[in-house]
């Protein structure tokens, strides 16, 4: 039976999911000229809703939307984790929508475009689906929104309609769909074992059932979070328009994976250690692989793609070691979801602004950004610092929490200690590598491409400024929120 939420907060959570969907329908039914402003408007409304939820948030609440008897098919859950992540995905969605107004037009030097309705409609659906995924309380709901985000990412990655873009789009869709089979299995098993789809029902399972369900969720999470062996869709997804890449890689698509895994662990009431071992091992392998792949990249977006893979691996690592009893690592991982979202969005949007104005995003051709484009230069530097985890930028604090948690549990398992050491090493090496490009691109005399760059559109400037501020503040917000 379908029931509507009764409390104010759960009603808002439902609205945060539905408003963007409604916006997408409105965009589809009106002429193209209005699309970008409608998208902007609906995204803004969703941000307001998310902010109200955050401010009015008191106690954890849960409501069943569709259920039959004891079987919960779809429901909403509001707790500190879901509200924080929802705030990130929705507000970054809004910033991306705002940025796209300045980016998708004839003035773009790399991809002149007119900003089709398709783009804005799917972007809104994406925001709605992300909000739905974050708030949903059932595995089947996660599966539904998982697949919807997959379809949206397909439409957006293939937006330029070149054969290569369409192939990359199909790759993203198919790879993540294959991974989604994990969620199919998890949902089916949970239903067979417990007769309900609620994620919290995982806690009632026996240890071996729990392990199977959580590992199935983990497989799906690898797919979306571009972890080995499902990583191959992500670097190719760089064919997307840059604002989309930013959204996919920072706040939405890849965060689906870590979020569903986090939610599964959170609801499991103590997961079996095997889940932690599998998760850790794959995270470390991915981490090393991602770092090695940094080295040959000269396309800024591809470099960022591999950086996303390693950052997500760090989050996965944090979640996995929390299985061994480290609450700090779990909080660190959640905070890192939040911080990485802002830092990586900033990085991508700076890359987008550079390709918009200078027509290239090849790192060797970008020199002396600071003298010609101070805002972009500062943005570049802040983003690099935040991603590499340099204090006082946000990435530091959450990574620190993860490593501290790692050392805490590493005392009992020497292998975990080795893993933590590897992760720490990777973090330092990443910092060195980013420093290298930072030194090459930011100071000095402008290269030809930079010297002839066009002015940066206003909305892009606004968005980058906001994100620079957030790249410092986000970890304080996360730390305060998670306590």
């Amino acid at each position: 039976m379908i029931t509507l939420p009764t409390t104010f907060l759960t009603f808002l959570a439902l609205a945060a999911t539905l408003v963007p969907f409604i916006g997408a329908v409105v965009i589809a039914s009106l002429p193209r000229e209005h699309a970008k402003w409608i998208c902007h408007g609906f995204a803004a409304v969703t941000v307001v809703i998310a902010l109200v939820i955050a401010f009015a948030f008191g106690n954890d609440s849960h409501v069943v939307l569709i259920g039959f008897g004891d079987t919960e098919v779809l429901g909403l859950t509001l707790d500190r984790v879901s509200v924080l992540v929802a705030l990130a995905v929705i507000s970054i969605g809004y910033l991306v929508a705002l940025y796209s107004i300045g980016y998708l037009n004839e003035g773009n030097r790399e991809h002149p475009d007119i900003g089709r309705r398709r783009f804005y409609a799917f972007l809104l659906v994406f925001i709605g689906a992300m909000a739905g995924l974050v708030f949903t309380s059932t595995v089947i709901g996660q599966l539904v929104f998982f697949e919807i985000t997959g379809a949206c990412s397909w439409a957006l990655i293939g937006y330029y309609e070149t054969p290569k873009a369409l192939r990359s789009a199909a790759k993203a869709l198919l790879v993540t769909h294959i991974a989604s089979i994990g969620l199919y299995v998890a949902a089916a098993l949970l239903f067979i074992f417990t007769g309900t789809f609620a994620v919290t029902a995982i806690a009632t399972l026996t240890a071996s059932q729990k392990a199977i369900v959580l590992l199935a969720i983990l497989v799906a999470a690898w797919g979306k979070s571009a972890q080995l062996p499902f990583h191959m869709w992500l670097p190719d997804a760089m064919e997307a328009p840059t604002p989309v890449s930013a959204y996919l890689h920072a706040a939405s698509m890849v965060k689906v994976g870590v979020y569903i895994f986090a939610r599964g662990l959170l609801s499991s009431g103590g997961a079996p250690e095997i889940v932690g071992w599998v998760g850790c091992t794959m995270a470390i392998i991915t981490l090393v692989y991602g770092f090695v792949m940094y080295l040959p990249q000269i396309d800024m977006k591809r470099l960022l793609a591999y950086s996303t893979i390693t950052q997500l691996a760090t989050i996965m690592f944090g979640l996995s070691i929390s299985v061994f009893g480290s609450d700090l690592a779990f909080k660190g991982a959640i905070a890192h979801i939040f911080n990485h979202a802002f830092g990586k969005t900033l990085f991508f949007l700076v890359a987008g602004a550079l390709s918009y104005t200078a027509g290239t995003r090849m790192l060797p051709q970008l020199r002396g950004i600071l003298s010609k484009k101070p805002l972009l230069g500062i943005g570049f530097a802040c983003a690099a610092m935040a991603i590499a985890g340099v204090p006082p930028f946000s990435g530091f604090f959450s990574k620190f929490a993860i490593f501290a948690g790692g050392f805490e549990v590493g005392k009992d398992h020497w292998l975990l200690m080795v893993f933590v050491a590897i992760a720490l090493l990777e973090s330092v090496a990443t910092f060195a590598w980013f420093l290298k490009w930072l030194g090459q691109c930011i100071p000095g005399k402008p290269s030809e491409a930079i010297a002839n760059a066009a002015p940066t559109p206003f909305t892009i400037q606004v968005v980058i400024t906001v994100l620079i501020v957030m790249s410092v503040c986000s970890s304080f917000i996360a730390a305060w929120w998670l306590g």
Partner: protein
Amino acid sequence: MTPSLLPILILIVPLVAALGLLLTPTRNLTTRTCEGVHIGSIVLIVLLSLGLAASVLAGNHPSSLGGWLYVDALGVIFLLIIGVVGLMTGLYSIGYIRHDLEEGLLDAHRVKIYYGFFSLFLFTMLLSATANNIVMMWVAVEATTLGSAFLVGIYGQKSSLEAAWKYVIICTVGVAFGLYGTVLVFANGAEVLSDPHQAVLWTSLAENAKLLDPSLMKIAFVFVLVGFGTKAGLFPMYAWLPDAHSEAPSPVSGLLSGVLLKCALFVIIRYYALMIRSIGPEFPQTLILVLGTLSVIVAAMLFYVQKDLKRKLAYSSVEHVGFIAVGLGLGGPLGVAAALLHSINHSLAKALLFCGSGNVVMKYGTRDLGKVKGMLRLAPASGVLLMVGALALSGFPPFNVFVSEFMIFTAGIKAGYWILMLVLLGFFTVTIAGFVQIISGSVLGKPEENAKVGDVGKQTLIPLGILAAMVLIMGFAVPTPIARLVSQASAIVLDSGDPIVVKAPWSLFGNEEATVAEKAGNLIVTPAAAAETAQNTETK
């Protein structure tokens, strides 16, 4: 059984419409009159099928002609499919056939034949879904071939005539096997029943199934499965299907794929129910499961390599029918309910997509995916509808096919077929790749330079819009009456009409446990069924 006029009425309406149109000379008929009669017939069919559904939900089993016609929850599901999809494709036909008339592809005479045979085709399908007499069931399925063959070949071109010819030959041969099966069951029944006349009625056979000879029933079921499986497009006799479904006018393709295949499946399900009662579920389930799996695998591969839009869709139908068969083969209340729900969902989604392909044909004059480009820019509404259909059929939420696919998957995991289910989902990923190809190649992309912008007419868009809405609604929440019918029907198939309150997993779709037992009261209780339900309660 409740004596009722409705089953007769629902048959008489299309028959009268068909004979009226076909027997009146063309010069006395305007196209308008043909369309009027046609609309009258399809609307009445929908109303009557809804009436029958209401009557079944109220606890009756309408029956007429001395039990020759009999409608229960199982039959009514298929009647509703015929009625609703018939209405939508019928309404779509108006715009489509007018377009063909203007283009000179058809003349007034052929338009009259089209509408006449459309109603006749509906009549034969309705007959197969209402038949209680097993010989009449066979006759009806055979008659659907004849009724639809003329529609397949209506354009009179070489390729369409060839397709129609192939269709008639293969299906007649195939359904002849079905006749052997029918006769074996009948002979078997006539031997053991006190009143041999009863041996021809499905209901009395079902009641006395325990008396039937098991080895004869096994042989009969093999014949039935191969025979009617030909008509349903199951592996290995599906070769006629892609030709016939792609050459027919698009609304008819929608009917063939969406409805006719299900009618043949319905007959298989009737026999499947008999087998469960007489020889237990194991033998029929294994056979259906194997054929279904092979259908999915072969069709997914062939689907991917097709270059012709409608051929692609035809292979997708084979795949989905195979998947429905897998659901039946998995058995259990969940598997059967999921299979029935998947029949409904696939009918709606496939009708949407075939009619959408009709818009492609109207707009571009070809079905070659290499030549159809930029649909979204030239004909935005058709493009969006095509995209919705493709996403729905590839099993993406929030559309309906996802729901039933997930249910079949759950049934499979529950029955312990882990590897099989993962493999099948893998093959469905191949299908997704194929649909993505359609969308990215034809719906998106840049149209040719001199192509004219403008969508096809409203008459062809509105039925598609309604179908798309139904696809979406069935994806969100299955309406309670349909959920009740599905759960009652699966109880009929599985013979779980026992007085114990069944707490079955498909209570997912409404708490109908108590009523199921009451409604299926005329069927006998078997220990096997009781064991099955006990097991369900346990896992719950």
